[in-house]
């Protein structure tokens, strides 16, 4: 089951690399209002943004960063294998395929409201291209104090040895804030996305994390809808997963058949209910916190064992 995908190598690199901790990143949709704000914020964090892509604006610059018309040129000029997308949902699939066609190996898909069939097509295509999609509908991915690819605020995140995975954006910030306050810094925090299907699902994240050194524990922020948490719980049990895991599930009090903000957060019958997810976690010996602030408490207890 071990993954061939070395995420930390793509995000951070080896000490011998000339761009160690300075991996080049391309921003697709850099000149839009959202893309431009977050280009600046990522840069302020230390992310090495080397190019922007906006069709029709090639040859211009944004804040000293060259803009290209297409991904082919941008990749050729920068050698980047990471791209982050800020285009509207209706243009998303085209932009994402262009990125994969030009050698991008890690694609962070920020847009919300991407049709699920477009996500499925992209996931099928990424498999052929041996690339990874994070999202869509994700705040992105951050290696605290090294690289931030996405729209998360910088303050809640501190470096350390916890991996934080979340289906929700703001809850990821909230949990990172709670963890940091309790001196549990993070090795890696990743929003898997709030949509019904995720480019990289929880099980794939767990596979990737196996290969990362010094991970002390994994915190999973789930929510109602689908069966990602149930499948993860089975996987943890079946593979006797080697790291401790703490869970949190949002939406215990949500009504059935109502979409709670995220496209993926909807219960049909018992399918997707919080009870089902919590029961699966308990069966796999994963403690589930009742509130975000309870997570660091459960984590301390688990690590003392």
């Amino acid at each position: 089951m071990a993954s061939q995908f070395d995420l930390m190598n793509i995000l951070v690199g080896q000490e011998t690399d000339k761009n160690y901790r300075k991996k080049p990143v391309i921003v697709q949709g850099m000149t839009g209002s959202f893309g431009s704000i977050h280009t600046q914020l990522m840069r302020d964090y230390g992310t090495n943004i080397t190019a922007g892509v906006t069709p029709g604006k090639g040859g211009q610059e944004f804040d000293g960063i060259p803009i290209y018309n297409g991904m082919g040129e941008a990749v050729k000029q920068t050698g980047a294998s990471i791209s982050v997308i800020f285009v509207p949902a209706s243009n998303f699939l085209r932009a994402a395929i262009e990125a994969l066609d030009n050698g991008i190996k890690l694609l962070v898909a920020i847009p919300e409201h991407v049709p699920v069939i477009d996500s499925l097509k992209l996931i099928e295509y990424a498999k052929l291209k041996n690339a990874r999609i994070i999202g869509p509908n994700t705040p992105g991915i951050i290696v605290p104090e090294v690289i931030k690819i996405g729209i998360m605020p910088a303050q809640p995140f501190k470096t350390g040895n916890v991996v934080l995975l979340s289906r929700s954006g703001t809850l990821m910030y909230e949990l990172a804030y709670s963890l940091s306050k309790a001196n549990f810094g993070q090795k890696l925090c990743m929003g898997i996305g709030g949509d019904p299907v995720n480019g990289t699902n929880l099980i794939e994240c767990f596979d990737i994390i196996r290969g990362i050194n010094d991970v002390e524990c994994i915190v999973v922020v789930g929510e109602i809808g689908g069966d990602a948490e149930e499948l993860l719980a089975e996987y943890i049990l079946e593979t006797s997963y080697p790291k401790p895991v703490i869970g949190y599930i949002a939406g215990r009090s949500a009504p059935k058949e109502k979409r709670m903000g995220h496209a993926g957060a909807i219960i049909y019958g018992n399918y997707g209910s919080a009870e089902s997810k919590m029961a699966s976690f308990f069966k796999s010996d994963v403690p589930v916190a009742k509130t975000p602030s309870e997570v660091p408490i459960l984590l301390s207890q688990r690590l003392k064992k």
Partner: protein
Amino acid sequence: MRLLEYQGKELFLQYGIPTPRSALAASLSEVEKLSSKFEFPLILKSQVAVGGRGKAGAIVKCDTPSEVASKFTELINKKIKGELPQSILVEQAVDIKQELYISLFLNRGRRIYSLICSAEGGVEIESVKNKLIIDVPSSGVPLPLATEAALKLGLQGRTAESFKAFVINLSRFVFEKDAELAEINPAVVLRDASLMALDAKVIIDDNALFRHPELKKYQYMSETEKQAKEGGFSFVELDGDIAIIGNGAGLVMSTLDMVSDQGGRAGCFLDFGGSATAETIFYSLKVVSKIKRIRAILINLFGGIVKTNMVAEGILRAYREGVIEVPTFARITGAEASQAKDMLKDSNANMYDTVEQAIQGLLEELSKKEEIYGKSV
């Protein structure tokens, strides 16, 4: 977006999926006019978006015109699982040789579409032992896959041919119209070996509506929901008296859970998304003010990029302009938090450092009011 049966069937017909002869009636005079054009027996079907309509008494057979009149009046006024129908579908009964179950849906966990078929139709699929589950690529059901399904279901000759065409048309419908689910239970084999969809349960991917303007007519929204949508908010009306507002769906859900754990009852879920400005806060309070039973507002805002003094400004404006009167309890983290706290000092808004404290403050205030005025709900 979950479609009503008649809406799903309208779309099925466009894709060559046969359905019984039918018409929609919203009043007694309409149904009386209609029934003379049909042969008896007729089926009346309440158009509500809930499952298990058969068992819930939402589908009745009528043998005479007088029966149609009495059963129609009964159905149009009857709530099915809490939902009152706007109209009744009048349908010609058909002569059934065999009932099947056919559905094509997004299998979230496996990240693929799945086709489920069974030779036992008309019952709940969860209870059926013999069913086929087949992976379908996003390019749709190819002919060999349909042939394989027909064979495994034991269908032969002309029935097998009808089945294949039926499934391929269904697949075209699902992938062209961005349906997350199309379930036909039952699909029936008629005496002439043709197939027909007797029911239609269809869910369309809301995120794909931008490329289906023709489906927008099926979208039903209340006035408050429309206003929320205009503001770019995610909004769900609930039945309690506490409005819950925040930035981020997960955070608002989590707040809802904490309120309910402490015995409070949420009256709505409102996620105003990524950009918290004075304007978005003001507008979200305006939306919430339309729900008359709201007695208190809880704001949980996890900022980083958010300027909390802007949020405070939005809240103050809502009080100043008389948009809201009920008290607000807020937990707002982010830049300038102490300034925001200062701004709200003399208003009907209270600011706290943690959401737990804000919830406690809110519930204490509500119970104080209950002691004075008595329980209102």
